[in-house]
C-alpha cells in the first residue's frame, strides 16, 4: 500500500520511486540534532538566533547602550563588515583580515593612523576564517584551505590551494574553524562534533595542530565538542580554549567551558562528560566512570553562553588589575528561555588554571527586561596601544575599547 502510494505521487519524479520503495524500512532513530531533546522539551520552540546579513551603518549602532567599568570607553572602529567574526592581523597591525560564516567572505581591513577601510578579499567560500602566519595569509573554509603568500601588506594574486594536505573531513555542522598560530609556529585547528550530542568518528570533536605547510598533523585534544576560540597563555605558552556545552538539557546547562591544555593528548570529555563532571543523560547511559580521565575545565562559563573569542590581555593601557587576565566574548544563548551571555567577561586565574573568577566587563548588548539584544560580541584582539577590539557578528562591526584614568590620575 505504502509503496503504491509513494510511486503514484512520484510519477513526475521517476528517480525517486526507487527510494520510495524502501519507505517501509523500520523507523530510524531520531536525527542526531534532536538526540538528547527530552520529551518534556519536544514542543520547545527555542531555535538559533538569526544573524543579520545586510549592512548596518555606523550611525545605526547603539553603542551608547554598552556598559563598561569606569574609565573605559568604546567607539566604532570599523563597520560594514557584514557577518564579520574572527580577526587576525599582520605584526605591524597595518592590515587585518576578518572572516565570516554564511556570508562566505574574508574582509581585508587597512589600518592607517587609527582609521580603517576595508574591501572583500575573497568570497563565495564555505564559512571561511583567516589567520596570518609567517608572512602569509591562510584562509580556512570548511572544505578548503588557501594560502596567500607575502600578504603582510595586503593579500593579492592567486592563492596556493593547500586543501589536499590539510585533509579536512566533510561534515559541516560545528566545523567553522577558529585557527590560530601557536608559539611553536604551528597552526591550531579545531574540528567540532557534527551534532548536538552523538558518538563521533575519529576525525571530529578535537583540536589538531599542523606545520605551516600542512604536514605533521597531530590531534592534541579530544572530547572537545565545539571550540571556536583560543589563545596561548602569555606566561606558560599553554593553549587555553573555550568550548560550547550541549543543547536540550534545560536552561541551566551543561555550562560552556574554559579549558586549559597542559599536555597534548588530553581528553575534555565530549560526548560523555560535560562541564565540571555532568554525565551525559543520553550517550553515557550505563557507562561507568564517564568522567574518568577527563580534564575538567578551568572554569565553567555559563549555560548556553556561546563562549567565543579568548584573549589574554598583555597590554599596559588597562589598569593593573586587568593585566594578564583572559577576556572572553560570550556571543549569547539561543537554547535557553531567558537569554544569557551577550557580553565580554574577564577570567582571572593562576597560570595553572586554579582559582578562576569570571567577572562581567562589557555588558548591555542584551536587555534582560524584554529578552532583546542588538549585538553579539564574538571575537577579541589587542592593539599595540593596549586597547581591545571586540567584533560584533550581528552588526558586522568592530568596537575599540580603550581606557584613560579618571582625573586626577591615580598612582598605579
Amino acid at each position: 500500500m505504502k509503496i503504491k502510494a509513494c510511486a503514484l505521487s512520484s510519477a513526475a519524479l521517476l528517480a525517486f520511486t526507487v527510494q520510495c520503495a524502501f519507505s517501509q524500512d523500520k523507523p530510524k532513530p531520531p536525527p542526531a540534532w534532536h538526540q538528547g531533546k527530552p520529551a518534556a522539551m519536544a514542543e520547545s520552540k527555542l531555535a538559533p538566533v538569526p544573524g543579520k546579513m545586510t549592512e548596518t551603518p555606523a550611525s545605526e549602532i547603539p553603542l551608547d547602550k554598552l556598559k563598561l567599568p569606569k574609565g573605559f570607553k568604546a567607539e566604532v572602529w570599523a563597520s560594514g563588515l557584514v557577518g564579520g567574526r574572527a580577526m587576525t592581523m599582520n605584526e605591524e597591525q597595518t592590515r587585518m583580515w576578518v572572516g565570516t560564516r554564511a556570508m562566505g567572505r574574508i574582509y581585508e581591513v587597512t589600518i592607517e593612523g587609527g582609521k580603517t577601510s576595508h574591501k572583500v578579499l575573497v568570497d563565495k567560500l564555505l564559512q571561511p576564517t583567516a589567520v596570518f602566519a609567517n608572512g602569509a595569509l591562510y584562509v580556512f573554509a570548511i572544505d578548503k584551505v588557501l594560502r596567500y603568500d607575502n600578504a603582510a601588506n595586503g593579500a593579492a594574486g592567486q592563492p596556493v590551494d593547500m586543501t589536499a594536505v590539510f585533509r579536512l573531513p566533510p561534515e559541516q555542522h560545528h566545523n567553522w574553524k577558529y585557527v590560530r598560530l601557536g608559539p611553536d609556529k604551528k597552526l591550531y585547528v579545531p574540528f567540532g562534533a557534527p551534532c548536538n550530542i552523538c558518538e563521533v568518528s575519529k576525525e571530529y570533536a578535537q583540536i589538531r595542530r599542523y606545520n605551516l605547510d600542512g604536514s605533521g598533523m597531530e590531534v592534541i585534544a579530544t572530547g572537545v565538542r565545539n571550540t571556536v576560540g583560543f589563545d596561548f597563555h602569555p606566561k606558560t605558552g599553554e593553549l587555553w580554549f573555550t568550548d560550547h556545552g550541549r543543547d536540550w538539557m534545560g536552561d541551566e546547562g551543561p555550562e560552556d567551558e574554559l579549558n586549559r591544555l597542559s599536555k597534548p593528548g588530553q581528553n575534555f570529555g565530549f560526548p560523555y562528560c560535560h562541564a565540571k563532571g555532568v554525565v551525559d543523560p543520553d550517550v553515557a547511559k550505563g557507562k561507568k566512570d564517564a568522567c574518568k580521565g577527563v580534564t575538567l575545565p578551568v572554569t565553567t562559563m555559563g549555560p548556553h553562553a556561546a563562549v567565543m573569542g579568548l584573549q589574554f590581555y598583555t597590554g599596559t593601557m588597562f589598569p593593573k588589575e586587568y593585566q594578564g587576565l583572559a577576556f572572553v566574548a560570550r556571543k549569547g544563548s539561543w537554547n535557553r528561555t531567558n537569554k544569557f551571555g551577550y557580553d565580554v567577561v574577564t577570567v582571572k586565574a593562576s597560570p595553572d588554571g586554579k582559582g578562576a573568577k569570571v567577572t562581567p566587563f562589557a555588558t548591555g548588548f542584551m536587555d534582560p527586561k524584554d529578552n532583546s539584544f542588538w549585538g553579539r560580541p564574538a571575537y577579541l584582539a589587542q592593539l599595540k596601544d593596549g586597547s581591545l577590539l571586540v567584533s560584533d557578528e550581528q552588526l558586522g562591526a568592530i568596537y575599540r575599547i580603550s581606557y584613560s584614568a579618571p582625573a586626577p590620575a591615580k598612582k598605579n
Partner: protein
Amino acid sequence: MRLQVGGRWAVLTALFISASVHAQAPPSVARLKSCAECHGEDGNSLNAGTPSIAAQPRIFLENYLVLTREGLRGSDEMQRLLKGLPDRDIVAFARHFSSLKAVPAPGAVDRVLFERGRAIAARSRCGSCHLPDYSGREQMPRLAGQREEFLLEVMLQYRQNRRRGGDTMMSAALHGIPESEFPALAHFFSRLK
C-alpha cells in the same frame, strides 16, 4: 535536477538591466514584476520547481537574497538576476514578499503520503524551528504550501552537502532522516493550508 524554467530568462534579465539603470531609485515595479514572472504575481509559484516566496519570513528572504547575490545560493539564473543588488533593495523586496499571503501548492493530495509526511515531520520535530503550522519564522523558511519538487530538491541538497551558504543547523536537523522519507515530507508540507 533543474529547477528553473529556462525560457523567459532573457526577457527578465533585460527587464532587470533596464531597472538597474535607476539603481538609486526605490525598488521598481519592473523589478518586482520580474520576480512575479516565475514566482507568481502573488508570490505563489505556478512553476513546478520554482519556490513560492509569498509569506516567507522577512529575515529568511533577506538572507536568501543576500546569499544568492553573493553567489553562494540559488540557481545560476537567480545569481545573475541579483548580482550587484544593493542591500537597501534586498530589504525592500523581502518586506514586500513577506507581506503576501501563501496558498497551498497546486495538485491533488495523496492522503496516505500526506499522513506519512505528517508523522515524519512530527517525529523529526520540524515544527520546533519552522513552527507547528510550518509557517516559518525569522531565518527559518515557511514550509507550508511550498512547491513539492522544490522541497524535495532542497532536502537532497542538504543531505548531499550541495547546499551552500546557509547555517549548518539544517544539515544537522536532517541527520538520521532517510532519503526515502523526503518525498513524503515534501508532499505533506506542500499541501498544507
